[in-house]
């Protein structure tokens, strides 16, 4: 999956660059506005549909009870606070940096969504931060799991329900699976709402 996404990103950057600097074949807004908005709306719809249809996910969470919500809640809160602190430190728009870190590792959502709400520069930032988060979760898992069993799940954020779930199950043990899945599920569900809410507060 990652290699297709990287290929699509590189092709997009290259064609955007050439279209802009070597004679415009098509208006920029066709791709950066119309195709972008259309596919973003469709993605949110399909993701919502996948949550609604998935009866297993809801059942697993019910079984684990309310206590399991403590975990994703702290991850979301910690990430957003981290965005706030680093935004102040770097002297950039703190709402944008909070929205970026509220992506919780879901870069295919956070990049485009933050881009639409805060402009393309922050869209790129949102993509890179969250892409690195997923990459770091996978590459450092053998080290982070030694700190404590739950650290990889915190690192993974919203990705622990799908992309990083296999590695987490392998390194953190199958008991961590439910926690990881539920945490990723809750975080994936709240990420789009949190990002748009932060944008509204600005």
């Amino acid at each position, binding site marked *: 999956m990652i290699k297709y996404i990287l290929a699509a990103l590189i092709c997009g*950057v290259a064609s955007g660059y050439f279209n802009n600097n070597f004679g415009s074949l098509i208006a920029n807004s066709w791709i950066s506005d119309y*195709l972008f908005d259309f596919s973003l709306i469709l993605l949110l719809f399909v993701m919502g549909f996948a949550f609604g249809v998935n009866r297993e996910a809801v059942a697993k969470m019910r079984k684990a009870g309310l206590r399991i919500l403590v975990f994703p809640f702290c991850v979301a809160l910690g990430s957003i606070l981290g965005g706030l602190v680093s935004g102040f430190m770097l002297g950039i728009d703190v709402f944008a940096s909070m929205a970026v*870190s509220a992506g919780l590792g879901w870069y295919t959502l956070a990049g485009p969504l933050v881009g639409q709400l805060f402009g393309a520069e922050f869209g790129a930032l949102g993509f890179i931060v969250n892409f690195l988060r997923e990459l770091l979760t996978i590459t450092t898992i053998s080290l982070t799991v030694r700190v404590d069993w739950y650290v990889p799940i915190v690192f993974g954020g919203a990705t622990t329900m799908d992309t990083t779930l296999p590695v987490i199950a392998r390194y953190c043990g199958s008991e961590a699976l439910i926690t990881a899945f539920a945490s990723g599920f809750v975080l994936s569900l709240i990420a789009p709402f949190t990002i748009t809410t932060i944008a509204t507060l600005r």
Partner: protein
Amino acid sequence: MLNLVVPLIAGILLGYFLRNKKRFDLGKITFGVIIALIFSLGFSIGSNDELLGSLLTVGLNAVVILFFALLFSVVFVEAARRAVRME
């Protein structure tokens, strides 16, 4: 904002009511949509000359933001685990 929250909620509701119908192959649709989305994100980055020039700063900012986001997440979860005595 509303034009993004509406499709999300509509999807959840529709999926919830159609859960007893036959299975849907969402993987392929999601894949196609994500590719289109990432391509157009790349396009808006590539067609923005100012942004391309500042990509190095963006990368540095990204590392700082990610560092603090992860640090506070771990600290909060650890604090909460002690507070509610989770295993």
